[in-house]
């Protein structure tokens, strides 16, 4: 594949090599830091806090997936959490011990699944199977529903993907023989730990980052920025969107499996609008087109409510004493988001990434003049004024 550098010229080659080394160094340093942090968290944080840190990882995976599916392509999906549910139930049904499955009375399960017993397996191997199967099934469903949905743009795709979420919810509630309806599944073994959750974060970030940096990623951004121009120069918009949708669904499905193996239950209410909007806020807060922004957004949105809980309980600030005000945490958070949207409508990071931005400081020549970079977020409705992609029949 052709790189974007002057690959032919010796100077270009030297530069891209030194840039590669720089990148590798940054990646190794980041991994080492992450490892140190996890070792610290494992050794010193109490169980509840460790769970919180794990939840940050799971939310980060979902948010980064949504960055791929919606942020890069401009296809605003409200259906992401449907894939979380698919991954969650799939993973849970694989690992719940057979005696619990019969106890919960799930007559809809096929014989092999009802009797499947992964408890003899090494825990992490069982979890890996549950994650890959959950992600795989989510990706398969995404490929099926994506083929018609990805033809739509703007508001239409938002509404249509929301329809998908509603269908998944209805299935989860009513397919009692498999999902146990609104009561949900329980007795899911607690296999998800800190390390495996963050290992999946690393895999997700790496995969999405590679996609973004490839010609595929450029084509996705192009179709987001200007649908007509992208199609006129030969970008197969439908295929790019579909790939983003399917890969995003895979990692979201993995996150669903990780999630239920952390909390031990899978109930439909966990996979609906509240979660959907939480994840969207994470991504919008971080910046719709930024992987690191999604991770930061997920971190803030997972941890902030916990810290703000102390505020709700009331506290003393020097001579001032605040009584308990319940609901205050949500109000503070909401005001915070509103302020971010007013002062940084493109989110904290916009389209940019933390890594290259830090590197960029050492190479002033490559820096964009401040204030000139059009890191505007994709609008909700790119190209709705145009004839919807691949729907030429509407004019004929």
């Amino acid at each position, binding site marked *: 594949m052709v790189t974007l550098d002057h*690959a032919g010229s010796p100077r270009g080659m030297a530069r891209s090599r030194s840039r590669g080394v720089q990148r590798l160094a940054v990646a190794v340093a980041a991994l080492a830091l992450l490892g140190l942090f996890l070792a610290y968290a494992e050794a010193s944080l109490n169980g509840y806090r460790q769970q919180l840190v794990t939840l940050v990882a799971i939310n980060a995976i979902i948010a980064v997936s949504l960055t791929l599916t919606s942020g890069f392509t401009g296809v605003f999906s409200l259906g992401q959490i449907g894939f979380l549910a698919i991954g969650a139930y799939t993973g849970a049904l694989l690992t719940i011990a057979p005696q619990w499955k019969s106890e919960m009375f799930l007559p809809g399960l096929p014989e092999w699944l009802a009797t499947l017993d992964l408890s003899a397996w090494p825990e992490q191997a069982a979890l890996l199977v549950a994650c890959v199967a959950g992600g795989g099934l989510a990706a398969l469903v995404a490929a099926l529903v994506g083929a018609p949905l990805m033809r739509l743009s703007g508001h239409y795709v938002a509404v249509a993907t929301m329809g998908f979420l509603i269908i998944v919810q209805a299935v989860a509630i009513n397919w009692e023989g498999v999902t146990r309806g609104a009561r949900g599944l329980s007795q899911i073994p607690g296999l998800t730990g800190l390390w495996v959750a963050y290992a999946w974060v690393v895999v997700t970030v790496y995969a999405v980052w590679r996609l973004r940096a490839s010609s595929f990623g450029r084509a996705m951004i192009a179709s987001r920025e200007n649908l007509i*121009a992208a199609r006129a*120069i*030969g970008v197969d918009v439908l295929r790019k969107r579909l790939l983003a949708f399917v890969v995003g669904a895979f990692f979201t499905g993995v996150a669903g499996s990780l999630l239920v193996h952390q909390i031990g239950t899978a109930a439909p209410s966990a996979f609906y609008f509240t979660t959907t909007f939480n994840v969207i806020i994470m991504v919008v807060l971080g910046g719709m087109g930024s992987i690191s922004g999604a991770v930061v957004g997920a971190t803030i949105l997972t941890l902030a409510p916990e810290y703000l809980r102390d505020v709700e309980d009331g506290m003393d600030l020097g001579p001032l004493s605040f009584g308990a005000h319940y609901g205050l945490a949500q109000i503070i958070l909401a005001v915070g988001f509103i302020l971010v949207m007013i002062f940084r409508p493109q989110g904290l990071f916009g389209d940019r990434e933390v890594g290259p931005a830090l590197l960029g400081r050492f190479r002033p020549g490559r820096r964009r003049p401040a204030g000139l*970079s059009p890191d505007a977020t994709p609008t909700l409705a790119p190209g709705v004024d145009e004839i919807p992609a691949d729907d030429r029949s509407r*004019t004929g």
Partner: protein
Amino acid sequence: MLILEDVHVAYGAIRAVKGVSLEVQDGELVALVGSNGAGKTTTLRTVSGLFRPRLGSIRYDGTDLTTLAPHEIVARGISQSPEGRQIFGSLTVRENLMLGAVRRKDRAALGDDLDRVFDLFPVLKERIGQSGGTLSGGEQQMLAIGRALMARPRLLLLDEPSLGLAPLLVQRIFDVVARLKAEGVTILLVEQNARKALEVADRAYVLETGRIVLHGPARELAANPEVERAYLGG
């Protein structure tokens, strides 16, 4: 050779193109002129496969284009520089240009083609790492044309390449169009600037409210008193 026969295109109930027939021979530079809303952009976008005609046929070298998706049409050697500087604002100049070559299989030759674009528009080379959205209007127009050239088209569709540019830049764009023609690129040129278009073109079609009302050698049309009154402001 591109042949449109009795092509009708409508946006819902709005009939924008009502039976256009035209052809572009290999190596020719054909101009399509007409006033605002005549249907020029619609015609070009239909050739690119962005819209599907209600009626009529579009054939290129014997292939029916009306059933193909836009990317398949680009793969057959037809690329378009769309109306109104439609570049990708957050991508760099280089990324914009590389995207023009998404359908190319011969990736090895891309370096040469990049050089060719920089040869035509040296200013793009200076702006190579800059994001497209920060370019001036004229630079964006050059970028859109350069991007279409990166597809190494056999047929180039140019939709108002001189739109909104200062006279000096208009001249520069037309020089480039003439040069491309000299290099053997077949061009279908849509222009408001009928005078300039008729100067460089071999033949021309005049479109009025969705219909071709006149066509012939560009020189003859330029001398036609009716054309002169309606489009050349004389």
